[in-house]
């Protein structure tokens, strides 16, 4: 029973933000889904202050051992989320983590404040893989900028705050340390790696509607392990590790690298019950094979 920021979770497997829509899944698979919910906590797709349509299609490109996506964070906006989605998500049998993103301090503050008031929201995850208006870089690529934003919003709520780091940076451990220092209760990583695909047969034309996208899946698993290990050895707050997990063994490796929870993303696309399968594999591994622990 992992304890994560005060939440008692049934097992260490949660979903990666934006890779499982519990409301749509309920429509597709019926109420049995809730009875055997694949994750020990549910992480929402990223919510922004104003509604977003997302990027123009195509939004998907299949890569060797992975997926490149340029979804572009379509969502109903804060109000729509609170009015329409939150009641539905509150019915889930597991705690709800709401993921948010803003491109200015003010936006982030408004999101954190509004969600912090809702007791249905067990924790807030802040997605910092968004271009920062001041620097042009992703907010999460720059330790100083991220610290500035966090110090401004941290006092606005008592709800645990998870910072979802971007992997597209030279030194993720320094960024994580800055987040911890500025008051983050946990960090999560990795988000997708920036990538691009070309339209078959059309010279120089990108395939994705947004030109570039983010790579996920087994292709990024070893990058995730390196970043999670680097971050976990640098910060004291709990780490949610993710990136390319497809099995209990993969999850265990992230736990051994220092993660407290492991998120499953792209693997759910092929197997919607992957979370449940992986948490089962994980307990089997723990039960059957006492691992030699030496670091």
């Amino acid at each position, binding site marked *: 029973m992992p304890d994560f920021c005060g939440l008692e979770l049934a097992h260490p497997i949660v979903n990666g933000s934006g890779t499982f829509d519990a409301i749509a899944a309920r429509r597709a698979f019926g109420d049995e889904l809730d009875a055997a919910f694949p994750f020990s906590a549910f992480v929402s797709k990223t919510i922004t202050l104003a509604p977003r349509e997302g990027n123009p299609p195509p939004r*998907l490109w299949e890569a060797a051992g992975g997926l490149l*996506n340029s979804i572009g964070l379509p969502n109903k906006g804060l109000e729509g989320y609170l009015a329409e989605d939150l009641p539905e998500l509150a019915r889930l049998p597991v705690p709800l983590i709401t993921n948010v993103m803003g491109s200015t301090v003010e936006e982030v503050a408004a999101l954190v404040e509004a969600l912090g008031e809702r007791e249905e929201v067990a924790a807030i995850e802040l997605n910092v893989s968004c271009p920062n208006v001041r620097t042009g870089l992703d907010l999460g690529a720059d330790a100083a900028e991220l610290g500035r934003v966090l110090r401004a919003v941290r006092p606005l709520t008592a709800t645990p705050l998870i910072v979802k780091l971007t992997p597209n940076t030279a030194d993720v451990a320094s960024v994580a340390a800055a987040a911890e220092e500025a008051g983050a209760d946990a960090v999560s990583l990795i988000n997708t790696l920036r990538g691009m695909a070309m339209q078959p047969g059309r010279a120089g034309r990108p395939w994705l509607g947004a030109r570039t996208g983010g790579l996920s899946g087994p292709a990024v698993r070893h990058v995730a392990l390196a970043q999670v290990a680097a971050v976990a050895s640098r910060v004291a707050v709990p780490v949610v590790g993710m990136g390319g997990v497809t099995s209990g063994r993969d999850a265990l490796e992230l736990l051994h690298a220092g993660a407290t929870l492991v998120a499953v993303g792209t693997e759910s696309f092929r197997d919607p019950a992957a979370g449940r399968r992986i948490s089962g594999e994980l307990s089997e591994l723990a039960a059957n094979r006492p691992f030699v622990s030496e670091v």
Partner: protein
Amino acid sequence: MTANEPLGPYRVIAAADPAGPVPAAGQFFMLSAGERWGGGEGGRPFLPRAFSMLRREGDELRFMLEDVGPGTNRLATLEPGDGLLVVGPLGAGFTPGDTRRALLVGGGVGVPPLCCLQDELLAHRVETTALVGFRSATHAAAATLLRDPRVATDDGSIGHHGLVTELLERELDGAGGSERTVFACGPPAMLEAVRRLCVERALPAQLALESGMACGFGACFGCVVSLRAGGYVRLCVDGPVLDAHVLAEVPAH
């Protein structure tokens, strides 16, 4: 996987699904091989692939597919007994609804959902006309899945020499043409032509679209198509069958 048989240049594959819910015409399933999914061209396939249900016979689901890339290639070469991951039924299928005479229009691998639909309509004693287009007579083997199909081929090797939308236009221009409901599935260019024809004539029309899909159950928001009114819908949960009149256009991919 319980069977894998050729049908002209296509394959008809079957999967045992004793416990699954009964799918409706136009619904689809996400399929992937239980083993060795990957390792094809460009290291793919990685994601599952979407296939419309062709028919459910007893405990068996049937699909018809064309080998066009690493995913369909792998599925086409599986053998009975090999593992197959089946997720579904998914999406919103056709809504036959009223008693207007049904015009089924399809082409190529767009035939399967029309077969399902025709079965359903005939069971409800609704009259159907099926118009289907193919590249050639060999491909037109898939027309045998339908009852009383009228066939068009690109090369004229069987049936009407030309596009199936020409057959459709003739039919709509004929007696009772304005009293039809059109149900269509096929390649984007064909569907776009059908959409225009039906929008021009203000005919009710339901189009089963395709789009790249990562999940098929609403999780990834990758499969969106644009609406005429603005905004997007996810084809896997709000479709794959959409009202022709709400679409901006049928996307080329």
